[in-house]
């Protein structure tokens, strides 16, 4: 008996959960992952383009920061992704898997577009803008709160519910885009109020993206305070940790779920407003362009801290811009930029594993 016990072979290495990790070690692992990612994607790009990998990175950086316009565009894209990420954070912190941000953004965007089209000629601009703000925030909040009510009342699965709400929003947008299309039947709304600019958000200092960026930074700050300094924020983290604990200390879980999804949806609706009235001036199925899903990754990677989300959304947008630039510059298919983005994200998300767990190698046996 004792003999067999001895013969159990210890594996070469095994994985153990870390109890804690010093912050600098965690960041060292992350930095290492980014370096590895750059090496691998550099290698892949080199094999594909036969270009010097350093030149490829230079092109990436140039694509994101190369001109003043690209900087603004980078800022705008970061802001919009950040806005949606900040919006989903409260729900995720509560462990409410809201994957319906795409639909909530579209609902908000559709509401503002409808106001611009239907009321554009009849109302003075400040009144119109006010109605648009209320309508889009309301539409986003409505789209968010419906699954929350069902979850709170009947414990429906919120992941499926929010996902399905996306499709309803997309089809609604398709329907109205067709209805509002110019010229008739083209399936395109075109730029709304192209000459009158009715319902367009104002442009300050001749910088068309400035307002969006400032508004999103303000929202980020407010959400940070909301999550970390208020009773509501505390209730969200308690519900997220354990619903039973929450109930035990007298928190109404139902109320928290509904209230938090109202906030989440409202911010998504705001994002829709910024996209439609601030930059695109039109509405289509592509208005949210997948940000509702990318935002989940951004929020997770930042551990639901709104300020870290600035960093993570910067990272994602930088990768997108840089990779697109590589494919334009070297005449490659767009799929190439997706490969590069995929490789880099693989490492960055993968490294969290090594922060959570440590790899222990077999100690050399003394003979």
């Amino acid at each position, binding site marked *: 008996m004792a003999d067999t016990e001895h013969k159990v072979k210890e*594996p070469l*290495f*095994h*994985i153990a959960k870390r109890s804690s990790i010093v912050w600098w070690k965690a960041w060292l692992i992350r930095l290492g992952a980014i370096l590895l990612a750059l090496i691998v994607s550099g290698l*892949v790009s080199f*094999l*594909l383009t036969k270009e010097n990998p350093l030149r490829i990175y230079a092109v990436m950086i140039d694509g994101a920061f190369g*001109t003043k*316009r*690209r900087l603004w*565009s980078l800022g705008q894209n970061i802001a919009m992704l950040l806005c949606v990420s900040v919006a989903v954070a409260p729900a995720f912190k509560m462990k409410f898997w809201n994957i319906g941000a795409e639909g909530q953004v579209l609902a908000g965007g559709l509401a503002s577009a409808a106001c611009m089209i239907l009321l554009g000629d009849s109302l003075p601009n400040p009144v119109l803008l006010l109605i648009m703000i209320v309508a889009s925030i309301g539409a986003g909040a409505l789209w968010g709160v419906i699954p929350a009510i069902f979850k709170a009342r009947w414990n429906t699965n919120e992941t499926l519910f929010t996902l399905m709400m996306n499709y309803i929003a997309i089809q609604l947008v*398709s329907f109205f885009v*067709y209805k509002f*299309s*110019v*010229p*008739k*039947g*083209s*399936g*395109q709304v*075109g*730029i709304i109020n*192209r000459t009158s600019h009715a319902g367009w958000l104002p442009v300050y200092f001749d910088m068309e993206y400035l307002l969006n960026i400032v508004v999103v930074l303000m929202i980020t700050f407010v959400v940070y305070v909301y999550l970390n300094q208020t009773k509501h924020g505390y209730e969200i983290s308690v519900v997220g940790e354990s619903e039973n604990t929450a109930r035990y200390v007298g928190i109404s879980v139902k109320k928290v779920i509904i209230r938090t999804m109202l906030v989440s949806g409202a911010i998504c609706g705001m994002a829709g407003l910024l*996209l439609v009235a601030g*930059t*695109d001036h*039109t509405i*289509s199925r*592509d*208005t949210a*362009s997948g940000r509702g899903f990318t935002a989940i990754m951004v929020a997770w990677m930042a551990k639901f801290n709104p300020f870290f989300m600035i960093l993570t959304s910067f990272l994602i947008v930088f990768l997108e811009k840089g990779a697109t630039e590589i*494919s*334009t510059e070297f*005449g*490659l*298919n*767009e799929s*190439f930029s997706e*490969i590069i983005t995929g490789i880099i994200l*693989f490492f960055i998300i*993968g490294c969290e594993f090594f922060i959570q767990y440590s*790899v222990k190698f077999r100690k050399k046996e003394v003979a």
Partner: protein
Amino acid sequence: MKKFLSRLTTFLLVATLVLGCMTGCNSSEKDTSKGDTANTSNSSNTKNVKIGLICLHDENSTYDLNFINSIETVKKNLGLSDDQVIIKKNIPESNECREAAYDLADRGCNIILADSFGHEPYILEAAAKYPNVQFCHSTGTLAHTEKKSNFHDAFASIYEGRYLAGIAAGMKLNEMINNGKITADQAVIGYIGAYTYAEVISGYTSFFLGARSVCPSATMKVQFTGSWYDETAEKEAANKLISDGCVLISQHADSMGAPTACENAGVPNISYNGSTQDACPNTFIVSSRIDWAPYYEYVIKSVMEGKEMAYDYVGSLADGSVKLTAVNTNAAAAGTQEAIDKAIEDLKAGKIHVFDTNNFTVGGSKLDSYLADVDTDDNYTPDTEVIKDGYFHESEYRSAPYFDLRIDGITTLNEMY
């Protein structure tokens, strides 16, 4: 441990896939560069042009591939170098289009081309911001009323191409009737359209009139998909039409959905935007397409020589903008090529007109007057009389089609898009 190993294998798998794909991409890259060096000898004053092309999708869309091929042809013909042509693919019809246009201008492009209808308003904004850059947009409707010296629209009289392709369809229907495969009443064509937009309506009507000019008993059913590019929806629509008894299919949407469905079902297909014979060797008959190369050559030469360009350009059979691919003799009826060639001559000579009012009725009666919405506005106001001399004058008052009549003999199955 197991977990880790499985992750490792996944990664290795991904890596091999990536490597595999790379070798594929590489070889096609080389081909184009070889072609370029062979042709650079005849470049003279081509140095002062730099062209940017904005595409809605990439080569996987037959529509965008047609544009990419056209610009590559012109690049070769004029001996332009690689860095004189920048192609931006997968640019959606949103703010990103404006950003793409600005970025091309910042890179020093003095000609910027865009291929999708929905790009137009953004291109128009970019044109206002960069007055020294020429913006040429395909399929748009605004240039003839905007009248900006650096903003241009273009289209071609593709309804003539569709009509010719329709003749090939009619010949095939006749062959099936003569073989006893179907009765004359069963000569039903199925058509997949994107939207109930004039461009689509003009396209399927001219196609139908071409078919009916040789097969008088032909009728047609049209199914709309509500998208210009939706492979699944187009495939489904084709399957539905086939199961509804359509014996020949054509489409005006940009994916390979419909041609693939036809090949799988063994139903003859008339394609659009270019040949799909490689993927559908047994069912592809012929395809009409707009060749943008003549227009692009016109644009580039105008800029090189500092000449003014038309606000609104209409390509034709005569200038080579409207083209038919080679007829696939495996699938087409005998004598198709001859019938097409004869019709080309007649169209060029003005002996026949596609939208001759003697050849169609609307609600049972012949038309002698129709006001079309030629100048785009939010209320779709009809503004121009387009029936004169016994035919509907398509693409004459504006390059983009405006024929939007529902003629007898064609049933639209779902006009919700």
